[in-house]
Every structure is written in C-alpha cells, then in structure tokens.
C-alpha cells in the first residue's frame, strides 16, 4: 500500500499569541513549533496500515524550510520517505497549500492519502477535502475509526451528537480525528534511524493566493467578571443576575 501523509508544523497550542509588526500575522519570536496534533493520528494510522498490509509511508508538507521539522517528526515515528514542497514564503493560503499538495500527490498515485482533520493554527478544516477534489479521490474527514477491506472503506465520522458510518472505495483521502488511535512515541532506535533519512525538496507548482489577510487582531478584551466568594450563599444573587442582567435564563 502506498500511503502519503500530509504533515504540517504549527505553533504549540499553549503559545501566547502576539501580533506581528505587519499586523497580519503572529510575532514568531519565542514561539515553539510542534507537529500538528491531528497529523500525529494520521501518521500513526498510516504506520499501522503499513504494518498490516505492507507498503510505504511518505510524509509530505508544503511550507518553508521550517516545515522539515514536521517531516522529521514523522520520520521518528517511522515514515520512510519525506518530501517538502518548498514555499519561499510563509504567506500562503489554504488553497495554495492544497493545490501544491494535490499536484504532487497526483503524480504519485497513492492508494491512500491521510491528513489530520485540521491544523490547529488556521483551523480551516479544508485541506483534506480540497486535495481530494483536486485529485478526484473520495474524501472522508473527522474520522474516528477506519476499516479497509480490499478496496472497500468503512469509516466512522464524528458529527454533532453522534457519528456517521461512511462507505467509500480506495484510493481515497482520509482526515483523522482524536480517538482513531493512540500515536506512538518515537523510540531511540527510530529516532537514530530518522537522522539519516533525507527530505526531498520539490518546487511549488502554484504561487497565487485566493485571499489575503488584511488584519490580524486579538479578540475583543472581556471586561472583568463579577466574582463571588461566599459559596452557596451567593447563589440567589448569581441566578438573579443571570436572569436580569445577562438575560440568559
């Protein structure tokens, strides 16, 4: 089975966001980066499928040089090949990322493409489906359980209040959600082995942008709340305020 996994590098989720001097992006100083947590599920799923069915796992990323860190994390988990579609700038939109990934993936004709359901920075929840459209593969996103039998796929997708059982066929694009598996921790052996794996660099096919960020702002500051400290004795007052001031009850 030839499996391609899309990986991206994102600011650690505890990062305190400061707006950069351009007022259009974050100030990167002091920000630490991690492999997008949802992509860890995708890498793990790919490795498990390979362990069961044979084949290879190729980690790919679209981004600047820095994105190699994400690929290296996938190497440490056990991916064998890595490809960076190297953007000259970090100023690209979701469409541009999807388009470049799709153009590369198309030429590879994989059996399966895995992504995390979304990346935690821009949270567009759209790259898996966009890539799938571009390469004309079916797509199932937000997947918490994946069964592949021959070329038949049965997946469980998380929705509001439950799940959907979705059927499709290989080749396909799958977006992974927490719950699908427990990503492995790299062991010393795989960390050592990962050091000698080269990341192949590929030139982007598309450099446009479909949207531009005109401004980045912090969310409107909340005014300080009313804090009560007398325990249950304050309950009647709280309920009164919820009814009369906040008008939510």
């Amino acid at each position: 089975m030839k499996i391609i996994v899309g990986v991206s590098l994102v600011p650690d989720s505890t990062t305190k966001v400061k707006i950069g001097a351009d007022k259009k992006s974050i100030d990167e100083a002091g920000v630490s980066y991690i492999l997008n947590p949802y992509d860890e599920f995708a890498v793990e799923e790919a490795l498990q499928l390979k362990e069961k069915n044979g084949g290879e796992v190729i980690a790919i990323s679209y981004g600047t040089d820095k994105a190699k860190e994400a690929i290296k994390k996938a190497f440490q988990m056990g991916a064998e090949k890595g490809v960076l579609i190297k953007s000259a700038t970090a100023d690209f939109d979701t469409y541009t990322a999807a388009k470049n990934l799709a153009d590369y993936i198309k030429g590879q004709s994989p059996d399966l493409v895995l992504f995390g359901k979304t990346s935690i920075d821009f949270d567009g929840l759209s790259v898996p489906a966009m890539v799938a459209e571009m390469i004309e593969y079916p797509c199932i996103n937000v997947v918490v359980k994946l069964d592949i039998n021959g070329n038949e796929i049965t997946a469980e997708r998380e929705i509001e209040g439950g799940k959907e059982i979705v059927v499709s066929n290989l080749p396909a694009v799958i977006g992974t959600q927490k719950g699908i598996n427990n990503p492995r921790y790299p062991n010393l052996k795989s960390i050592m082995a990962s050091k000698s794996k080269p990341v192949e660099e590929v030139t982007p096919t598309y450099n446009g942008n479909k949207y531009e960020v005109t401004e980045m702002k912090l969310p409107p500051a909340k005014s300080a709340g009313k804090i009560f400290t007398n325990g249950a004795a304050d309950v009647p007052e709280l309920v009164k305020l919820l009814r009369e001031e906040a008008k939510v009850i």
Partner: protein
Amino acid sequence: MSNRILAFVESKDGKFKNSAFEVVSEAKKISGELGCEFEVLTIGSGIDAEAENLGSYGASKVLVVDLNDLNSKSKFPGTQYSHSAFAKVVAETASQKGANIILISGTGLGKEIAPRVAIKTDSAFCQDCVALHIDGGNIIATKPVYAGKSMIDMKFNGDKILITLRPNVFKPVKSGDAKAAIEKVDVGSLNLTDKDFSSAVKEVVVSSEKLDVAEADIIVSGGRGLRGPENFHLVETLAGVLGAATGASRAVVDAGWRGHGEQVGQTGKTVSPSLYIAVGISGAIQHLAGMSSSKTIVAINKDKDAPIFQIADYGMVGDAFEIVPALTDEFKKVLGS
C-alpha cells in the same frame, strides 16, 4: 460583475436547524448591503412547507432538491446522504443560477461539503467565519485562528466567494410573515455522475438521546474538579433543570469519565452557547479555545486564581459540591420546575 448570493441551508427529518435561519438572515442582510439578489437552496424530503416559512427570514425563493431522488443516483446501496453529492448539488446550482457568493452554515455537514464546493466552483474560501462586513463593495470575513487567540480579517481575490458561518454566532432575524416561493429542482438537471457519489453515509448513529454541546444554547461542563465519574450527576441534574447539554474537559474525557462527544475545546468541539457553566474546570488554553466565544460564562472553581476566572462573566469561588446543588435548587425555584 453583478453579485448573486446562494445560501445553502441544512434540514433534517423535515426540519431546519437553527443555523439555517442564521444563514438566511445573514444572506438577506448582505444581499441588502450589496444590492443583489439571493436565493436559498436546501436538500430534503417533505420539507416544502417548512421551506416556505424561510420567507419570514427574508427569503423570497427556496430551491428544493428532493433527497430521495438524489439518493436514487447513488452507487452505494442504502445511501442516506452523500457529502460529495451535496457538494455537487450546491456547486451546480450556484453555476446554473449564476451565484458568485455562496453562504453555508458551518455545521459538521456544512464544513464537510464547503471545501469541495470551493474547489468545484473555483471560489475563494473562508471556513468558520464569525463576522461579515462589506467594505467598499468587498466582502470582508472575520475568522478566529490560533484556537481563538486571534482573529483575522480576510479579503478575497476574485469575485467568487464561499463562506461558512459558525453556528450560534449570527443572529436569526425575522422580517415578517411572507411565504417564500418554492422551486423544485429536477435532480436530472444537475448533471450528476457516479463520481459525485464517491462516498456515502449509510447510517447515522446517535450517541445518546442527549442534547449535543455543539447545538445547545446552554451547556453545563464538568472537569477534574468533580473528582470522579460518580459525581457527574451534579452536572447532569443542573443541566436537566436548565434544559442544557452536558460538556466535559479533556482531562475527564481522557480519564474515561465521559465520552469524547462531550469534550469541549481545541481537540473537542467548539461551542458558542448563550450560557456556559464550567464546573471544576481550570480553564486551560485548549479548553478556552472551544468555549471562549460563549456569550455568558459562569465559572465555579475553588481556586480563585484558576485561569477560567479571567474569561468568566460570573465567577463563584468555592466548592462545586456545595455550589452546584444550591444552584440547581435555586434554578428549580425560579424556573418553577
């Protein structure tokens, strides 16, 4: 070029979700500001009478695609619906009607089909918009990024635009009691092929009869401060009195006290209820990411320095085991239940 808006709204079992009224109202508002026409599209069975009522939110015409007719084209037996086919219906309708601006509600279904429609229609795309405004004739969409820690304003290149609207954020606005005209769309005219049913939903499993956090107007969430799953009845009873959904922090979901479906936060669900009550939840940044856009936040925590108090509108510093039962009783009293 002149603009034309298509709003795709979701129905289930012959009823519209609240998000449908939000999207129609926003389409009405934006069409007014742009001075253009808008139409509404929905896919469903037995939905016509309900669809007429969208007129009271300003829709003059609703295009209705019959779900059973659509499903009859599926190659997968037992298809209930298909995200890929829905995407084709929206894209094809937009192109037949000459709509260049598409609005979709950012529900689970909406977010799933929208990126596909964006590619099919070659539109610039914003997923999960929380505010829209017009600036010099251009649409500007505001979207939370970095787990809600900042917001971006997006301007679109070109005049084809697709936007999904975060549920519960935009206001449904009733503008009268006019009935919308219904136009039945012949499925045969939509140029569907086998490829358009590349995947299909065969079964929808409802996790419980309970209200889901993603759709609830009031949420009572519990965290590790409740000490164990046996104490969640406190949260459930309070939620019961308020007609609220129950939510949970990741810590308690990971500990197996509650199901993942209840998890609120960055790796759980994003919610924007009018009231969010956080019980024994510290307010880690990843939890805040999922609930900070709630309209009113009440925090109950015995640690006065817990970060949750920084975003709470009302904070109760104290023991949840005393406060929650008292709160439940007080609500029972004032709500007469």
